[in-house]
């Protein structure tokens, strides 16, 4: 990779290019593709073009109008991506919004993940809110519902666990008067091992299925085991 570095302090405009390190402190607008080993943003960045970085750490806010490729991405703040996101490891503290699809090895963290298309990963472990327009496909899904309602059209994988977060009670204490704490709405949930809480879904299909408290499920289809909590409503269940 190139030996040049790009450093922006204050406010500036750049045309992009190939760099070793890119550091933005303040406010930058980048018009053009950017390729680098390490991209750090402290503040705000507005990027129009593709971003390819080995590590991409964001403290603040960024807009990317183009595809993003990164082996490691850390978001402490908010990022808006309009394009395909292909990531190795995504560490989230804040919010990631993708207008497109996201592909990753691992996604973990706290906050909100919104994807208009589908989300594919080996493992997803999130506490917070998730909105997936199409399919959430992962070997392992662990979603801990918190702060607000989540919605995922379709969840597929090997082990799927949807729980309501028991942490953050201090924050819950503040919002305890709100009428409906966080729930998940889904059309279809399919997996080998499924545990769901506080979920509204039309269909849940799997090998071993546990329907926990606060669920409203249309149809459950299971193969070997089925457990239902007293505080769950299941309209129809079938073993196949």
């Amino acid at each position, binding site marked *: 990779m190139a030996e040049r570095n790009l450093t922006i302090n204050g406010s500036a405009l750049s045309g992009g290019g190939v760099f070793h390190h890119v550091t933005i402190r303040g406010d930058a607008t980048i018009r053009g593709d950017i390729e680098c080993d390490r991209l750090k943003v402290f503040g705000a960045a507005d990027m129009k073009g593709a971003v390819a970085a080995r590590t991409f750490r964001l403290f603040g806010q960024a807009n990317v109008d183009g595809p993003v490729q990164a082996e490691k991405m850390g978001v402490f703040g908010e990022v808006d991506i309009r394009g395909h996101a292909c990531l190795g490891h995504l560490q989230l503290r804040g919010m990631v919004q993708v207008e497109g699809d996201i592909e990753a090895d691992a996604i973990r963290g706290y906050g909100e993940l919104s994807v208009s298309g589908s989300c*594919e990963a*080996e493992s997803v472990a999130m506490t917070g809110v998730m909105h997936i327009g199409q399919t959430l*496909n*992962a*070997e392992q899904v662990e979603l801990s519902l918190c702060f607000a309602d989540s919605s995922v059209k*379709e969840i*597929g*994988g*090997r*082990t799927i666990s949807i729980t309501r977060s028991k942490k953050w009670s201090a924050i819950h204490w503040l919002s305890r008067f709100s009428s409906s704490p966080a729930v998940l709405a889904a*059309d*279809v949930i*399919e*997996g*080998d091992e499924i545990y769901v809480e506080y979920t509204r879904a*039309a*269909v849940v*299909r*799997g*090998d071993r299925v546990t329907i926990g408290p606060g669920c409203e499920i*249309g*149809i459950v*289809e299971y193969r070997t085991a089925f457990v239902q909590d007293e505080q769950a409503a299941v309209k129809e269940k079938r073993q*196949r």
Partner: protein
Amino acid sequence: MEQELISKKELLELTGISYGQLYRWKRKKLIPEEWFIRKSTFTGQETFFPKEKILARIEKIKELKDELSLDELAGVFAPDPAAVVLTKEEVIKRHIVSDLVMQWLDDEWGGRQDVSFAELLSLYIVDRLLRSGEISIEEGKNIWMMFKSHYPKLQGKSCELVVLRKMGVTVSFLVEGTAALHVEEGAKLIARLHVPTYIEELKLAISEG
């Protein structure tokens, strides 16, 4: 000419694989996105697959998954093959296509010795058609010409080769993706080939060598 579909539930029962495996294979691009056909049924959304293709694919994955890693398998099934170049001798030695078809290549190029994957693919498909006895040599040559000039435009996208004949006149064309065909009366559908299937076959034929 609607293709037969199989629901996801039936598929899992028939093949004995689990949801986890199916989703994993999809993630690894072993099963193409366009085979997941979503339809509304009275129980809500259901996913269907083109029956013949998915069964053949799963059979092949099961067969190969002990020898190859999932990533290597994805390479076998990817619609856009790596830039493979074989020499003419290798092609002949491995009996990938018949001598007759190889002769065309000679006529066209004379002395050139190397054959790219795309060129080999066009020969391979035409060769298979000829061997099936459905087309004449002259027709085969026309299909070959058509394929050679139009296939590169698809840039590795999934497509089908369709051959129609009416009153002895043969027409061939490529269709992007998979679409239902509705053909006028009297016309005979000679062949309809899913090109990626042949890409896989050819890749295996090359790698087995």
